[in-house]
C-alpha cells in the first residue's frame, strides 16, 4: 500500500477515508482533523489556558500531544481512581509522557484528596463502577478548571466514543442526553467550558498515532469496564463499519449537522442552587458527586 499523499510506503489504511498514509502524512492527517474540530466549534483560541483530562490511555495522551504540537498551551490533570493493578500503571504512563515533553501534569487522587476510591464507591452505591468513575472524574475536572483559572477542559472522547454514546441515546430515546451530546459545551455558572477535539478521529487512529509517535500508554482495558454496555455498542458499530466503511462518521456527523438542533431542550427550566458541599449548581439538596462521596466514605471509615 502507498501513502495517498507522497506515494511512499503506507503504515496505516483508513477505509473510512479510502486512504493509506505513511507516518509523516498520517500525523499531518491527525493534526488537520483536530484543527478542523477546534475551528468548526470555536473550541478555544491560542493563548487560552487549556486543561487536558489525562487518563494515561491512548486518547488523552494523543490529544495532549496534538494540542501541544498545534501550539496550544495545555496542562494535564490525572485523577487517581484507586483501581488495583490499573491506576498505578496509568499514572506512570501519564507522568512519563509529561516528563518526556516537559509538560505540567496535575494529579488529584480520589483516595488521598477526597476520601474514597472508585471500587469503594461502586460497592457503597451497588452500582456499576463506570458510573462512579465517570461522575467522579467529571466533578474533579470541572472543579479543578474553575478553581485554577483554566479556560476550557479538553477530553479525549473520539469518534467511536461519541458514535457509541449516540447509539445508546437513540436506542433509549434519551432526549435530554441527545440535547447534551455535543463536541463543545459552553461555560455556565459553576461549569467550565468543555470540548472534545478528537471527535473527528477514530480510536484506531489514536492508537496508531501513539504507536507512531512512540507514546507509551495503558493498553490493557480497565478491569472494571469489562462487559459494560458502552463497549457492546462500539462492537456493534464496528461490525457495521466493517461492512460499510464510513458508517460511524456518517451517523455522528449527520447527527451533529442535521439532527442535534431538533433535540434542544425545551420545557420548564429547572431551578439550580449551589450544592452546600462543593458549590456546584444542582437541582436537588446535594449534587450527585457529594451524594456519592457521602455514601462511599462511611464504608471505608
Amino acid at each position: 500500500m502507498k501513502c495517498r499523499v507522497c506515494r511512499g510506503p503506507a503504515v496505516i489504511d483508513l477505509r473510512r477515508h479510502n486512504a493509506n498514509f505513511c507516518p509523516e502524512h498520517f500525523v499531518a492527517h491527525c493534526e488537520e482533523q483536530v484543527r478542523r474540530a477546534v475551528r468548526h466549534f470555536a473550541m478555544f483560541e491560542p493563548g487560552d489556558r487549556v486543561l487536558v483530562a489525562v487518563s494515561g490511555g491512548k486518547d488523552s495522551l494523543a490529544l495532549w500531544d496534538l494540542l501541544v504540537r498545534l501550539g496550544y498551551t495545555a496542562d494535564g490533570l490525572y485523577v487517581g481512581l484507586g483501581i488495583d493493578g490499573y491506576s498505578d500503571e496509568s499514572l506512570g504512563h501519564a507522568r512519563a509522557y509529561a516528563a518526556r515533553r516537559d509538560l505540567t501534569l496535575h494529579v488529584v487522587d480520589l483516595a488521598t484528596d477526597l476520601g474514597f476510591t472508585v471500587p469503594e464507591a461502586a460497592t457503597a452505591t451497588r452500582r456499576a463502577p463506570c458510573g462512579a468513575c465517570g461522575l467522579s472524574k467529571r466533578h474533579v475536572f470541572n472543579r479543578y478548571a474553575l478553581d485554577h483559572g483554566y479556560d476550557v477542559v479538553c477530553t479525549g472522547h473520539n469518534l467511536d466514543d461519541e458514535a457509541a454514546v449516540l447509539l445508546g441515546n437513540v436506542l433509549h430515546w434519551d432526549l435530554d442526553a441527545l440535547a447534551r451530546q455535543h463536541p463543545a459545551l459552553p461555560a455556565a455558572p459553576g461549569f467550565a467550558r468543555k470540548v472534545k477535539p478528537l471527535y473527528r478521529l477514530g480510536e484506531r487512529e489514536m492508537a496508531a498515532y501513539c504507536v507512531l509517535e512512540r507514546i507509551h500508554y495503558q493498553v490493557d482495558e480497565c478491569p472494571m469496564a469489562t462487559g459494560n454496555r458502552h463497549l457492546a455498542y462500539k462492537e456493534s458499530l464496528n461490525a457495521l463499519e466493517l461492512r460499510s466503511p464510513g458508517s460511524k462518521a456518517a451517523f455522528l456527523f449527520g447527527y451533529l449537522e442535521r439532527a442535534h438542533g431538533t433535540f434542544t431542550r425545551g420545557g420548564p427550566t429547572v431551578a439550580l442552587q449551589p450544592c452546600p458541599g462543593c458549590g456546584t449548581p444542582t437541582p436537588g439538596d446535594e449534587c450527585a458527586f457529594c451524594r456519592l462521596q457521602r455514601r462511599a466514605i462511611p464504608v471505608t471509615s
Partner: protein
Amino acid sequence: MKVLLRNPRREVEVPGPTTVGALLARLDCNPESVLVIVGDELVTHDAVLADDASVEIRPVISGGAGNADTAPGTRS
C-alpha cells in the same frame, strides 16, 4: 509465527507466511478494532508476515464511563 493477543493477554502460534488481512480473518478479529504491530512498526492489511515473525494484535477499543456530558444531574 508468534501472535500476541490482549484482553486477556495470551500468545498463539499461527503458521506463516500469511497476510495481515488473512491473519485477522483466521483469528476472527475485526480490522476496525485492532492495530497489527511487528516489532515497533505498524503494518497494513496487505503486508506479508513471515513464519518466524512476532506479531502483536493490539485492540484499540476502550470504554468505561462513556460520555462525560450525558450523565443525568451532572450539568444543567
